[in-house]
């Protein structure tokens, strides 16, 4: 349908955000480059506005509820109520994160709650952004400014918003030839603030640099209680030659949370990355991943499991940019939609003219469990080169009636049969995770999420 130009942006609520950002920037003593970065961030997001559904990249995700909700930044000090609630939520982590040896940074509503250094490998810097900005801002200046400059071309609303509120997050530096054995844990907890006023918003920025031949596993977890909240989380990674990143993101925000997450990784020659996304919580969730395979022979694996039940909308957006020759990518995303849940998968693979010998495979599978669940899938290939092997596949359907019948003939109740099959569908992605602790946690969580009684599989 073509009509006279339709608005590709929503400007509702943007002015309030700009005001909050200006107040925030004025309250911080920052070096000039950082002030400039925040100012241009404000100018950019004010100009862009929230993308509307007429913006092709946001076609299936309506941000109007987010634009309409008022959110405010919380003061720097953490209240007792927040602290208590955060500890309760943290306890839900079970086995992961609680072993004393794991280095961990915990944040509550965007402010640092606790720092557990664990057994951090020598030379590895795992610090919070606020400290770095206060003590040695020059260390992050180049990376932050360069990324912001890139964004000027791509017109990214949430990226600019992140620049405007740039303050807290994690700075990770892994020196050359270092392999970090223990996973590095970044935990974000959103809790009711225990204060009057608008619900909290959090803009967090993680910056990881991996030098040559280094490797590390990073777990980012987002937990939330029931209160409304808005999290804008960005992680930007630079991988040096032959460096390797394992990135696991657990999204378990509360049922009224808005969550926009973005992970972008720049790969040097031979660098490889693996990203695992598990998205269970939130009201309106967007998980974005941008993999830039700039170095020859780089590789990336993208795995994602997104589950949405009534009242939830989960949008997974991935971009794999094959710039150089002989790079490989594998992508598998699965969606499980129940109740009135809505899922979106939009994955794009771009193969540039010079990227010969590219091997890219993309798969999206969606399982619909209820009559009212919705899914939109848009797997895309953009290929500018003939020496490639690329494929994508997408399937959407409900549980196989024959498989359900088979399990029932073995004595399972219809609910148990359905739950078991759903579990089997989702567990493929859990199995791809390296850490046994994370796997155990996810298995438990997936079982708890399932519609019916699969909570105790050993009792089946």
């Amino acid at each position: 349908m073509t009509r006279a130009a339709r608005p590709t942006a929503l400007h509702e609520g943007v002015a309030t955000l700009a005001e909050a950002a200006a107040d925030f920037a004025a309250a911080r003593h920052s070096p000039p480059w950082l002030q400039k970065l925040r100012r241009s961030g404000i100018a950019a997001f004010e100009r862009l506005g929230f993308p509307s559904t007429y913006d092709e990249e946001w076609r299936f995700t309506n941000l109007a509820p987010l634009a309409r909700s008022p959110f405010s930044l919380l003061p720097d000090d953490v209240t007792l109520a927040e602290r208590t609630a955060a500890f309760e939520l943290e306890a839900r982590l079970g086995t992961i994160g609680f072993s004393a040896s794991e280095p961990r940074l915990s944040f509550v509503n965007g402010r640092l709650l606790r720092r557990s250094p664990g057994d951090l490998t020598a030379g590895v810097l795992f610090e919070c952004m606020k400290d770095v900005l206060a003590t040695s801002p020059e260390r992050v200046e180049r990376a932050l400014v360069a990324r912001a400059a890139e964004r000027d071309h791509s017109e990214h609303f949430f990226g600019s918003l992140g620049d405007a509120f740039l303050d807290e997050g994690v700075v990770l530096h892994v020196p050359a030839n270092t392999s970090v054995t223990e996973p590095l844990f970044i935990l974000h907890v959103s809790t009711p603030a225990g204060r009057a006023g608008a619900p909290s918003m959090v803009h967090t920025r993680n910056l990881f640099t991996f030098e040559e031949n280094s490797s590390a596993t990073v777990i980012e977890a987002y937990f939330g209680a029931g209160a409304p909240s808005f999290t804008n989380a960005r992680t930007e990674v630079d991988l040096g030659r032959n460096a390797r990143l394992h990135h696991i993101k657990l999204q378990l925000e509360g049922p009224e949370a808005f969550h926009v997450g973005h992970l972008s990784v720049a790969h040097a020659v031979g660098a490889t990355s693996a990203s695992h996304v598990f998205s269970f919580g939130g009201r309106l969730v967007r998980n974005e991943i941008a993999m830039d395979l700039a170095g020859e022979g780089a590789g990336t694996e993208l795995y994602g499991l997104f589950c949405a039940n009534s009242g939830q909308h989960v949008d997974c957006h991935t971009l794999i940019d094959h710039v150089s020759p002989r790079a490989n990518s594998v992508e598998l995303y699965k969606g499980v939609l129940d109740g009135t849940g809505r899922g979106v998968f939009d994955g794009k693979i771009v193969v540039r003219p010079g990227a010969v010998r590219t091997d890219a495979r993309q798969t999206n599978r969606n399982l619909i469990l209820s009559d009212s669940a919705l899914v939109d899938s848009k797997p895309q290939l953009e290929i500018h080169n003939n020496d490639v092997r690329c494929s994508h596949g997408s399937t959407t359907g409900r549980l196989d009636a024959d498989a359900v019948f088979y399990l029932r003939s073995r004595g399972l109740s219809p609910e148990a049969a359905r739950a078991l099959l759903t579990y089997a569908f989702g567990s493929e992605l859990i199995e791809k995770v390296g850490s046994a602790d994370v796997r155990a946690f996810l298995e438990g969580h997936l079982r708890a999420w399932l519609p019916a009684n699969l909570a105790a599989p050993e009792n089946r």
Partner: protein
Amino acid sequence: MSDAVLDTLTRQEYPHGFVTDIDTDVIPAGLSEDVVRLISNKKGEPEWLLDWRLKAYRHWLTMVEPKWARVTYPPIDYQKIVYYAAPRSSKEGAPKSLADVEPELLAMYEKLGVPLKEREILAGVAVDAVIDSVSVATTFKEKLASVGIIFCSFSEAVREHPDLVKKYLGSVVPSSDNFFAALNSAVFSDGSFCFIPKGVRCPMELSTYFRINQADTGQFERTLIVAEQGAVVSYLEGCTAPKRDTNQLHAAVVELVALDDAQIKYSTVQNWYPGDREGKGGIYNFVTKRGKCAGRNSRISWTQVETGSAITWKYPSCILLGDGSVGAFYSVALTNNYQQADTGTKMIHIGKNTRSTIVSKGISAGHGQNTYRGAVTIMKNAEGARNYSQCDSLLIGDQCGAHTFPYIEVKNSSATLEHEASTSKIGEDQLFYCRQRGLSAEDAVSLIVNGFAKRVLKELPMEFAVEAQKLLGVSLEGSVG
């Protein structure tokens, strides 16, 4: 493979690029309400149709040209296009028989290989030929009329069967549907109309041949096919245009309506002038094609072989409204030199137990850019819907591009959808195998390309399958390395 082979093959000339010198009735370039009135007046149309055109024109004025497709072209100046050009002979009314048709015209169709003459009865094809804007001759009319089939030019249908036209015109593609459909609705000059009454199986293939002859003209034809309960029809469409250095616009609308148990098979071999090796000239083929499976168990199938046009931008679609209706889309799109194609389909499942199949084969060579863009939408009440999509791309040379943008929207959990796509070049080992069996390099590539497209080509009616294979050969054969 040797560049020499690639070179000779991609240098193949456009064989249909002749201009026939025919005295033509042309109106001045430009578009305004007066031009719309003039066209309507020239065709002696009734008041309601003029109103319909004017409504479309006024709506078109409020619209902006869509920009979302992956094609690039300089802005079109809609005031420089001639919206009506008719061979002079048609001024004295439509020809009664072939004897009334000008010999140059017939010679031209002879060159094109259109089986227009009665003696070509063996071909068994009834042809409605549209040159520039006006339908020049329709063969086999009497024979078709004897079983109750109406197959005539659009203008004639407006005169002879106004009720049918009024009932179905714009029922599938409304005049406000999109920018080019609105433009077409305002200025369409002729086209084909086909009506298959209840229970009739059309005894022969129906066919339309389009040709743009006049310079600077746009061709805006409209095809409307209605198949009543249980009717069956197979329809072919072919197109060519002379070689010119300027781009010409072709914005057609095709509407298909299938009632209960009816079947419509629509095949296209699109070979408009694609422009020269430097990408100069060629037709902009911006077409809206849509079929409505209105009745239970109705079937609509689109088959297209797209080898021509500088830019192809079309999405033959099916609205699967009736329970148990079936839609199909088979496409081979080939882009060579600087051709661009953004084509695909939309399958909108509304009725229960509706099924659709999409098989799209894209071949890119030279600097060609080939995009598959398709949507499969399963609406809320489309219980038990089923879709299978397959989109394969073959890349020939390192300057071309192949892109796949499928949209899959599911609003009903009982649906089963599969989408697969792959992109690759011709395997060295496949070539080696053929060469080793004694085939020349070009024969080997021709064999492989034809094999790649076979699943679509076999959907074409016989007469067209031969032409389509030849076309693929002319444009591509052997140019793979």
